[in-house]
């Protein structure tokens, strides 16, 4: 899974990893791991990060090409 946390931190007044970590109540190492893509956050943590960065969750976190699920083209 790829993410744009670094980008959104920078457009949010150069927010540091430590500041983001404190706001979502995790360690800085966890933010580093999420940014690097070596740890996938839970939905709860992803929602918290999205709320702090003021952006839609699907814009911050995106699946890689090979991770995309098969869809039925939006048909119900």
């Amino acid at each position, binding site marked *: 899974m790829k993410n744009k946390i670094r980008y959104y931190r920078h457009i949010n007044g150069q927010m540091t990893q430590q500041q983001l970590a404190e706001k979502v109540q995790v*360690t800085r*190492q*966890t933010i580093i*791991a999420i940014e690097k893509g070596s*740890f996938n956050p*839970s939905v709860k*943590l992803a929602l918290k990060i999205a709320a702090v960065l003021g952006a839609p969750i699907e814009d911050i976190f995106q699946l890689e090409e090979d991770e995309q699920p098969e869809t039925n083209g939006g048909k119900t």
Partner: protein
Amino acid sequence: MKMHSSILKSTWLLLTVLLIFLGRGLPLWLLILLTVLVVAAPILRELLPQSDLDERQVYISHLSGHIAFYVFLALVLLIMIREFIQKGENPAPEWYALLLIPLITKFAVSLYQNYEPRKVAYWIAYGWLGVWSLFILLSHGFSITALIEDLPFLITVGLVILLRKNLLMSGALFVLFAIGLTIFFRGWLRFDLYVRLLMYTLVPLPLLVSGLVLVGQSFRRSTDET
């Protein structure tokens, strides 16, 4: 608060280092006290409602515990094989207890975490009763003796099938059966402590746990319905 937490973490690290490097030279009472402290601290840290661990740290803690579990099993197996090669006889019962009890615990916890507890309790109980019946059948063949010995198990299975919708009654039946087995096999008390530990883990405990889970589920269901 942060400083307080750092002091606690440093103390724990110091205790762990002491245990690893000086373990063999320490008096037994101190070794036990240190081991309890070193093992209990991270467990408490995870279980306390105000845990300071975030989800990645919990994941790392579980992963390291998982790896340590397999390292432990490999070590026990290695010791058992070495004992067998050196002495030419089966290793002492404590090694079987060390190998099998953690495996059974892991298997049971995984089952209960993966599936609906009510279903797992029934699977374990039916499986256990089935294995026991098969054991009797293999010992005595299709005979009157086998039927008589198997009767309590067949009656229990029959009653549980009849009471399947009543979790409390089914659970109570399994608990009673487990207690009955413990009394019936009181002769095991003569055995070595580790043999007893292994036998009680393999025979009445799965039924007792299944029964208690079903009783617990019945109370949970009645709370959910109110």
